[in-house]
């Protein structure tokens, strides 16, 4: 049916009164996501758009509203604090959309999260997670992705890049192939959830039949995923790696998308994925058809 989020997910929005938070909360609500609370320090007791109660602290919101997921739209200087506040309140799924959190902050956040197993962080610098739904069978959209391109179904998508996720999902939908869940893990060098975490959930999910995995230059998460896929992943999987033509030493938009000291090149990642049995699409326009070719 899906991974991470579904129609039963009870969502808290941290930063719900900010312009991005409020705009996307409205979009999520329209999609059918259950927004049960918001947090903006100093605005406790008010209501957001006559809909969800606002609290001063995450702990209070979690206790009173039975929250099990939080999405963070808090500016970079305050985002690390927001993530840790959600973890401290015991929220199981924390999705951080914020782009631009200093690496030094994320080192500390990850260090704290690694000492516990209750809370999972997805992101930061990611589009979020969506389990597509219909009017009759509601789904759950947590994040900033355009809802319209999605179609409920049985394919998983996992990606470092927002727009390439939309691209992959849009191609699948155009082919009439629906998605179980699409997960953006984000483009930062230090994040909460990596490819392997997501792929292992797709592997276990009886309602996911295949996956598109989208990586990019920088780091070695794709290589680690390739090694894991080889030994553990049994479903059809197509891949794409962005940044074949990126010059070394330049940060390509995402903080994590940088080739340094000859490491993290697209070619090395593509080779590792192919070696692991992933069918890598030659251009990003072929991601959908590449997965489709594996399904027949």
């Amino acid at each position, binding site marked *: 049916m899906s991974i991470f989020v579904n129609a039963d997910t009870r969502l808290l929005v941290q930063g719900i009164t900010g312009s*991005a938070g409020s705009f996307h909360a409205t979009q999520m609500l329209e999609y059918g996501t259950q927004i049960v609370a918001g947090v903006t320090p100093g605005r406790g007791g008010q209501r957001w758009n006559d809909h969800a109660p606002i609290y001063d602290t995450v702990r209070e919101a979690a206790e009173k509203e039975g929250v099990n997921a939080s999405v963070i739209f808090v500016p*970079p*200087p305050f985002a690390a604090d927001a993530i840790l506040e959600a973890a401290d309140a015991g929220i199981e799924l924390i999705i951080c959309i914020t782009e631009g*959190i*200093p*690496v*030094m902050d994320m*080192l*500390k956040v*990850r*260090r*704290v999260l*690694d000492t516990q197993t209750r809370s999972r962080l997805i992101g930061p610098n990611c*589009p979020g997670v969506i389990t597509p739904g219909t009017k009759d069978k509601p789904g759950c959209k947590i994040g*900033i*992705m*355009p809802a*319209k*391109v999605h179609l409920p179904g049985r394919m998983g998508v996992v*990606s470092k*890049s*927002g*727009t*390439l996720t*939309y*691209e992959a999902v*849009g191609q699948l939908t155009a082919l009439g192939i629906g998605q179980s869940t699409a997960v953006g893990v984000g*483009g930062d*060098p*230090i994040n909460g959830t990596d490819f392997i975490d997501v792929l292992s959930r797709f592997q276990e999910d009886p309602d996911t039949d295949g996956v598109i995995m*989208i990586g*990019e*230059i920088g*780091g*070695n*998460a794709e290589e*680690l995923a390739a090694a894991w896929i080889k030994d553990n992943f049994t479903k059809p999987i197509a891949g794409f790696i*962005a*940044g*074949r*033509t*990126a*010059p070394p*030493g*330049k*940060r*390509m*938009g*995402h*903080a*994590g*998308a940088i080739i340094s*000291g*000859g490491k993290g090149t*697209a070619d090395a990642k593509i080779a590792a994925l192919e070696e692991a049995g992933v069918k890598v699409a*030659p*251009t*990003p*326009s*072929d991601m959908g058809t590449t997965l489709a070719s594996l399904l027949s």
Partner: protein
Amino acid sequence: MKIHEYQAKSLYQKYGIPTPKGILALSIAEAKEAAKKLIAETGSEVVVVKAQIHAGGRGKGGGVKVVKGADAAEAAAKEILGMTLVTHQTGPEGKEVQRLYIEQGLEIATEMYLALAIDRESRRVAIMASTEGGVEIEKVAEETPEKILKVFVDPAIGLMPYQTRQLAFGLGLSKKAQKSFAKLLSKLVDLFVAEDCSIAEINPLVVTGDEDVVALDAKVNFDDNAEFRHRDLWESLKDLSEEAPTETEAKKYDLSFIQLDGNIGCLVNGAGLAMSTMDTIKHFGGEPANFLDVGGGATEEAVTKAFGIILESKSVRGIFVNIFGGIMQCDIVATGVVNATRNLGLKVPLVVRLEGTNVEEGKKILAESGLAITAADTMAEGAETIVALAKAGA
């Protein structure tokens, strides 16, 4: 963000990390004066004239000269200031030397390597040290990786004494040098964390004749994301002449722009899509002129500016606009494109692919503009078309 060696050293000094005495010089006369002053202060005739550019490998490229006396320093400054320095990090076009750092010469017993960087896999600050100093560390890593010692600093605990010992003994330092090294390393870790560095590298780190450990070179890169914590300091350290003017201009509008060598300009939203748009252009035999991610929240003004930067580039023979609107709305992009061409004119072929939020409104704006635009339905189709059009026009 990159800074110069002399700026990194002044930051080191703030943290009590020993460096040689040095003075910045922006002219040949200043260089001579600086050399005289250093010679008087240190009592030694030996001074080093060092080119200040944002790239390593300066010594090999002829940008560092060890000389004796102020006249020789003047001669060296004449040679280096204004030269185009080509190193393995500058690319073949090199960089013009506009600043010199005049430094006291030290008696060197041993050259070593020391660097701090963020290690993504362990999610720690990694400390790398090697006895192979003064050479390209990339080479050492490739040929004799066992000669690079590594320890990882736990962000919750900080650097532990046993880690310093591991490195100090591994480097084979004398007792006195060990103490000096331990002090330096602890301060460097403090600096790295407090100043939000992404890299702090000392190559070479030297043991002097007196068994003191001194940072003979200094490289510091900052994590751009942390600028909000260091705005004043970083502003004062920026050297815009080291960056492509287009990139500086784009940054003002929160656009992520990187100048490349090709002739097909691209305007895209999202880093992944922008990278793969370049890849796709290349796949069809073209060369991208730039990387440009207008991001999710770009205003009409920012898109106008971004498209203007591409339009004004002399090397551009064709432009590909590739948008998959999520947060970004297609009509905002379309309006920006039309505004920019109204001001600057459109002299090269333009292919536009719009998808996602407000796509119909966007297409309508482009259609009503009367501009010569070729529409494309997919990224691949758009890339193939613009490559063909650019070739036909060139």
